[in-house]
C-alpha cells in the first residue's frame, strides 16, 4: 500500500483485509450451500409468527367441540396434529427459533472462549499456558452429553443451562488448534516487527495475531453450531428441555412418548429430524469451505 492513501481509506482496506479470509471460503460450493440453508432458516425464525397457522401450544377443537387429535396432513394442518390436538407445522416453524438460538449462542460462546484461551495460551506460554491446557484436558475427560444432562437435570431444565453445559466442555478443541496457530504466527516477521517497534502486548495480540486466526475461530464456530443444535435436541428428547418451549427435540420427544412410531405417523416425527439434519449439515458444509481454504491439501 502506498503512503499517500487517506487514513480513512486505509482503515477501510484494513477492515476489508481482515474480513476477506472470513468471506473467501464462501466461494466453495459446499460453503455457499450451507450459508444459503442458514439464511433460509434465519428468515423462517424471524418471520415465524406470520408463517404459523396456529399457536403451536394451543389445543385445538373442532366446531362441534371434538379434539383435533392425531390427524394426518390436510389443508388446515399441513403436517397434521399431535395426539393432544396441536398443529405440527406451527410447532416446526416455531421450533426453528429454539434451534437457531441455542446453536448460534453456543457457537459464539464456544468460539469466543476457545479463541481467547488459545490466544493467551499460545502467546504467553509459561504457567497460564500450562494451567489452561490442563483445564482443557479435564474438559475433554468429562463425558459431553451426560454432563449436559446433569446440568439440565439438576440445575433446572433451562436453555441457559444447556448452553452453559455445551460451552464448558466444547471449547478445548478450538483452543488447542488456535494455540498451535498462534505459536506459528507469533514467530512470523510482522509480529516480530511490531514487537521491535514497541507495540504493546495487547495491541500485538489483537491487531496483529488475532486477524490471522479468525478464520480458524469461524471454522470451529461453524462446527459448534451443529453440535449445539444436536445436543439441545437430544436433551429435549430426553425430557430435560424447557417444558414451556417448543423445539424440534421436544417435538420428537412428544411424538416418541405418544406412540407415533408404532402408528407410523411419519408426518409427525420425520420433519423435525430433517430440519435438524439441514441446519447441522449447513454447519458442516460451511466448515468444509473453511477447511479447503485453511488446509488446501485436503481439497482433492
Amino acid at each position, binding site marked *: 500500500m502506498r503512503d499517500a492513501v487517506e487514513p480513512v481509506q486505509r482503515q477501510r482496506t484494513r477492515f476489508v483485509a481482515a474480513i476477506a479470509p472470513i468471506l473467501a471460503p464462501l466461494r466453495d460450493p459446499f460453503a455457499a450451500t450451507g450459508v444459503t440453508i442458514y439464511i433460509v432458516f434465519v428468515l423462517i425464525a424471524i418471520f415465524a409468527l406470520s408463517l404459523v397457522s396456529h399457536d403451536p401450544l394451543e389445543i385445538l377443537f373442532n366446531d362441534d367441540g371434538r379434539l383435533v387429535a392425531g390427524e394426518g396432513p390436510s389443508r388446515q394442518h399441513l403436517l397434521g396434529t399431535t395426539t393432544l390436538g396441536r398443529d405440527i407445522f406451527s410447532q416446526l416453524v416455531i421450533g426453528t427459533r429454539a434451534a437457531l438460538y441455542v446453536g448460534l449462542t453456543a457457537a459464539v460462546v464456544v468460539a469466543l472462549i476457545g479463541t481467547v484461551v488459545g490466544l493467551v495460551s499460545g502467546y504467553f506460554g509459561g504457567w497460564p499456558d500450562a494451567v489452561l491446557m*490442563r483445564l482443557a*484436558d*479435564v474438559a*475433554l*475427560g*468429562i*463425558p*459431553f*452429553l*451426560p*454432563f449436559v*444432562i*446433569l446440568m439440565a*437435570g*439438576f*440445575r433446572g431444565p433451562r436453555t441457559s443451562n444447556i448452553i452453559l453445559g455445551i460451552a464448558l466442555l466444547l471449547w478445548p478443541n478450538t483452543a488447542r488448534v488456535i494455540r498451535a496457530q498462534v505459536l506459528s504466527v507469533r514467530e512470523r516477521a510482522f509480529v516480530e516487527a511490531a514487537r521491535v517497534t514497541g507495540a504493546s502486548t495487547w495491541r500485538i495480540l489483537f491487531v496483529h495475531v488475532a486477524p490471522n486466526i479468525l478464520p480458524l475461530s469461524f471454522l470451529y464456530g461453524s462446527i459448534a453450531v*451443529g453440535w449445539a443444535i*444436536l445436543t439441545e*435436541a*437430544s436433551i429435549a*428428547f*430426553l*425430557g*430435560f428441555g424447557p417444558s414451556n418451549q417448543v423445539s424440534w*427435540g421436544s417435538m*420428537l420427544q412428544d*411424538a*416418541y412418548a405418544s406412540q*407415533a*412410531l*408404532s*402408528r*407410523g405417523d*411419519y408426518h409427525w*416425527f*420425520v420433519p*423435525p*429430524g430433517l430440519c*435438524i*439434519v*439441514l441446519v*447441522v*449439515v449447513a*454447519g*458442516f*458444509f460451511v466448515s*468444509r469451505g473453511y477447511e479447503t481454504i485453511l488446509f488446501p*491439501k*485436503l481439497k*482433492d
Partner: protein
Amino acid sequence: MLSLLSRFLQMLFVLWVVATILFFLFRLMPGDPTVAYIDTNFNEEQVRQLKKSFGLDQPLHVQYVLYLGNLAVGEFGNSFHQKQPVLKILLSVLPNTIILTLSSLIIAYAFGSLAGAWLAWRRGTWIEGVMIPLVLTLRAAPEFWLGMVLLSIFGFQLGWFPSGGANSAGALYTSEWQRITSADFLRHLVLPAATLALYLQGLPLLLMRSNMLDVMSEDFITMARMKGLSTRAIVLRHAARNALLPVATAFALGFGASIGGNVVIETVFSWPGLGRLLVSAVAASDYPIAQGAFFIISVVLVVMNFVADLLYSALDPRVSHARRG
C-alpha cells in the same frame, strides 16, 4: 517410558478433577440430596439417622475425603429408589452398554475404513460427488431420530425386529454369558447397533479417505509402484497400513465417547444400559445412581483417551522407536 508414566499420571489427575467436580455438583445441588429419599412420614430422628447413614452430618471436607475413598474402591452407596448397592446395579447393565458400543463401533469402523479407502481410490468421480454429501448428512442426523425412523419402519411397520429392550420379557437364563449369546438378545441388538453404526461410520470414512489421499501422494507409494509391486500390495500393505494409524486412534477415542453418547440410543430402544440408567436416575433424582453412572462413564472416557495415546505410539514406530543416528 517416561512420557508414558507422565501420561498415566495426567490420566489420574483428570479423573481426580472429574471426581471433585462431581462431588460439588451433587453436594451443592439446590436442596438436600436426601430430599427425594425422605418419606413425609419420617420424624426428625429418622431424618437424622438417614443423614448419618449418608455421611451428611459430617463437615464438607470430611465428606470429600470419605467420598474419594469410596470412589476409589467402587463404593457408590445405595440407590434411593431401588434400595440396592449402586455398584451392583451399574455392573448389571454394563455388559449391555459395552456390547452395544463395541458391536456398532466395529461395524462402523470396518465399513467406514473400507469405504473411505475406496472413495479415495475413486476420487473425482460421481461416486464421490454423491457419497460425501450423503455421509455428511448422516453425520448431521441426530442419532435418536435415525433410531426412531428405523424403529418405526423395521420394528413396528415391518415387524422384523423387537421394538425395544435387550431380552424378551419372561426369558430366563442360567448365566450372563448364555443371555448375551442368545438369539433373542442378538435380535434385540440389531436395530440399536445398526443405528449407532450408521451414525458413527462417517468419522472413520472421512478420516480414512483423507489419510489415503495424503498417503497415496507420498514418495514411498511412488517407490512401491517403481518396485513393480502389485496394486493389492501397494494399496493394502503400504497405503492402507499408514492411513489406518489415525483411524485406530479414533476407534479408541470413539469407544470412550460412545459409552456416554449412547444415552439417547439406549433411551429410544429402551436398551437397559448405563446411559438409560443415568437418564432415569437424573429424572427420578436418584443421586447415588446418577453419580455412579456418570463416574463410570467418565472413567471409561478418560481411560480410552489414554489407550488411544498408547495405541498411537504402539502402531507408529516413529513414536515408539528412538532415533539411533
